[in-house]
């Protein structure tokens, strides 16, 4: 009889991208049981909203997640706007959808890269993250930042979309179409990828319902559940798309779902820019919100995002509760890991795409010698980088070709 060994993974571990603790009991290489510990990153954001105005709370809520920031800010505003009796304009609703689908694209591309890296397929990792940069450039151009875009504001959106930006979006979608065709071919036809991902981290349809799994994790198990269909908000009811499901109920299925969802998102982005109504982007939002309570939902890239806001008639919310999709997907995690190999654990954990923060790009540099601040545009920043590496590391990066940035 082999000896049982308990292996802790986390809260800080090279295989984890965020702090969580998995205590795995092994027999040989097989995981007999798993205990999942989370909560290392609880920041008390909900409490801090209670002493701030709605617009201040919006910027806190946007920082719940560095990847699906737009999902959280939209969901929070849906609550606040319903409480205040404010209906946003159709153009603002379309812009929210546009940002939401671009966010889904960059989130799924990020996930595809992480998953590829974890299985040693670093070529795919590089491709996916290269393509994600194109989407991040669009988001930075439309909102002002790469991850916390700040496009949303109570009563609508802060920035309109210009015809030039629409041309940029469409030309980027052309590039993504070609790349996505390759990813679809890989996901559906590559035998090595299928052999590595199939039957890893199984969670059946019944188990998804039992553990309350959401998003691509559930849809990969034939669960036809997408908030954009079951409770559409913004302009989702007007925009045609297919809910992608799969039957494999494992990491392979989750890969297929995310890749095919990106194809749908590209179609939705095209539809949104082609059918975007004219008009204002903002309506007046009151400083004080009438008393009441509202629950709103939004389909974030990882699944159902739920927000609850209770108003007390003042400028501050009485209570805010955020249930991010990862919070729903952790419940089935132990079950997904149990029975699999230890080496699969990082991949299974990554397959629900747990949230972690991205670092924003810096455009303002401090000169250590003079203390002066200098604002760099894109070309200056690139030149600074080339000079730095040439001087410090003897590496000349000037011949590397990268896409031109039109709006920085």
């Amino acid at each position, binding site marked *: 009889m082999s000896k049982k060994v308990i292996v802790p993974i986390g809260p800080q571990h090279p295989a984890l991208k965020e702090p969580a603790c998995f205590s795995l009991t092994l027999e040989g290489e097989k995981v007999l049981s798993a205990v999942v510990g989370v909560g290392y990153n609880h920041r008390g954001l909900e409490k*801090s909203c209670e002493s701030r105005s709605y617009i201040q709370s919006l910027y806190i809520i946007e920082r719940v997640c560095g990847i699906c920031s737009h999902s959280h800010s939209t969901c929070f505003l849906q609550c606040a706007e319903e409480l205040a009796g404010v209906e946003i304009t159709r153009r603002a609703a379309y812009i929210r959808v546009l940002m939401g689908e671009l966010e889904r694209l960059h989130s799924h591309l990020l996930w595809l890269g992480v998953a590829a890296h974890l299985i040693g397929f670093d070529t795919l990792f590089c491709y996916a993250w290269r393509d994600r940069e194109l989407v991040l450039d669009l988001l930075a151009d439309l909102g002002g930042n790469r991850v916390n875009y700040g496009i949303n504001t109570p009563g609508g959106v802060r920035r309109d979309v210009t015809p030039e930006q629409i041309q940029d979006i469409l030309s980027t979608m052309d590039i993504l179409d070609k790349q996505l065709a390759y990813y679809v071919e890989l996901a559906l036809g590559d035998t090595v990828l299928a052999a590595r991902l199939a039957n890893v981290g199984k969670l059946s349809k019944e188990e998804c319902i039992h553990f*309350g799994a959401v998003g691509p994790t559930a849809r990969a198990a034939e669960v036809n*559940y997408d908030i954009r269909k079951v409770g559409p908000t913004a302009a989702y009811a007007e925009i045609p798309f297919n809910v992608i499901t799969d039957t494999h109920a494992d990491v392979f299925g989750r890969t297929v779902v995310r890749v095919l969802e990106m194809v749908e998102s590209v179609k939705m982005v095209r539809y949104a820019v082609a059918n975007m109504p004219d008009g204002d982007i903002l309506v007046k939002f009151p400083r004080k919100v009438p008393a009441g*309570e509202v*629950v709103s939902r939004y389909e974030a890239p990882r699944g159902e995002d*739920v927000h609850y806001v209770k108003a007390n008639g003042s400028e501050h919310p009485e*209570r805010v509760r955020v249930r991010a999709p990862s*919070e*729903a997907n952790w419940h089935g995690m132990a079950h997904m890991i149990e029975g699999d190999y230890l080496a699969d654990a990082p991949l299974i954990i990554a397959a629900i795409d747990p949230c972690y923060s991205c670092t924003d790009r810096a455009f303002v540099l401090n000169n250590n010698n003079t203390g002066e601040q200098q604002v760099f545009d894109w070309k200056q920043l690139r030149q600074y980088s080339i000079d730095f590496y040439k001087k410090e590391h003897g590496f000349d990066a000037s011949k590397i070709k990268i896409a031109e940035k039109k709006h920085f």
Partner: protein
Amino acid sequence: MTAAQTQEQIIAKYPSLEGKVHIASDLRVWVDALPASEFEDLLAYVHDEMKYDFFHLVIGLDSGENLEFVYILSQWEAPADNEVLLLLKQYAPKSNPVIKSVSDRYANATWHERELVDLLGAIVEDLPPGLSYPLPDGWPEGNYPLRKDWKVEFFDPLTLTYNPPAPAEEKPEEGGAK
């Protein structure tokens, strides 16, 4: 099941809830807060008979004298484009904030209920054993950050101690009796 059918069915079973079941929108039905003893029976009915069998989350609130708990439920077999959320509420006095775990019916409720324990000081009976969530080890007992009387400015995160100012001493009235 539509919002109107949900409302009708609950009132038919519990006539005392007439006027306490509200349709807030096409896809939202709210039931006013019930004491824990009545809530348990209603929850069993909506789960077992009405098939509100999918649990989204439970939210805890400090409402002054009581703690309130909002349960968000839906039907798994609902139409794919018209899902109603049923929002049930129960309350328990802060002096004895005991509620019963719903994890026997909804397996994914446990972590949400652990949060009620840590952040609001609820006592959740029959909660399966497990790690606490989300406060760190060594968190001082009796400190419930989501209660309204708990102020973050009095908490020292380095020493994990809560240091509220001492209550002001009552000053004797100047001048005495006239």
